[in-house]
């Protein structure tokens, strides 16, 4: 294993590792109980955590529900769209 990285390689590495996040947005249609259920069902969150995130969506207009690689977040966003939730992904430092 090389001890030193070229600076440019380091940049690439941090850029590639930079986490992305899935954001669920508030909408006037989906029921609070349903949104909570989806968070529990899909992400495996406890009811308490799912409710906390749902309330964030409800009161703040958005909530970060997961983070990870870009590919993983695209999968989560697609799953949220399957459930009819309005979700997007973005870089964690946005």
């Amino acid at each position, binding site marked *: 294993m090389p001890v030193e990285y070229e600076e440019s390689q380091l940049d690439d590495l941090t850029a590639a590792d930079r986490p992305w996040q899935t954001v669920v947005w508030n909408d006037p249609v989906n*029921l609070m*109980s*349903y949104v909570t*259920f989806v968070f529990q069902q899909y992400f495996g969150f406890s009811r308490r955590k799912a409710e906390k995130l749902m309330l964030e969506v409800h009161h703040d207009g958005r909530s970060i529900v997961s983070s990870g690689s870009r590919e993983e977040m695209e999968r989560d966003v697609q799953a949220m769209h*399957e459930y*009819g939730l309005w*979700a*997007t*992904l973005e870089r964690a430092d946005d």
Partner: protein
Amino acid sequence: MTEGFQPRRRGGAVATFSGFEADLLRSLASQLIELLRDEAAVPTTEVDPFEALLDFSGPTNEPDDPVLARLFPSAYRDDEEAAGEFRRYTETQLRSGKAATAGALIDTLEEAGLPPQLDEDGLTIDVELDPGQAIAWMKTITDMRLALATRLGIEEGDEELWEQLPDEDPRTQVHDIYDWLAYLQETLVRSMGG
């Protein structure tokens, strides 16, 4: 009128619908399927017609129909190119998935005794859903509600406006259906422990 869903002993949910209610659900599900298949899910940005014909992947532009735009929102808010790529790889799959889920709802109703043409009074339909079917029903009821809400122009905190609509306004009846679906959804989620 149906009392909505109750928990099923072995997991899942059960409900009894009048023939009229079951027929209404079938009709909403069919309309959803029709809409999902309506706008051809083909790439619209391809310039070369030969390449376009050979390209079986999905569309890259947001759908024109506002209901479809809500069902398939942009995954990236500030990056049109990334949003287009995402759409290209997911929208076709999402569309066929949603259509298949809505189709399964119709099958369940018909297997439970809903005739192709409803002309019998006093018919009741007992629906029994296993946990997987219950979640599929939730997804389709959500899509129906999103579709109706988009057509009606429902916004956050506008409940009073809808309550004040006169009975003869055609939107009143549609809004009643929208509310009824919310009731069904609520009882279904609760039956599943939510």
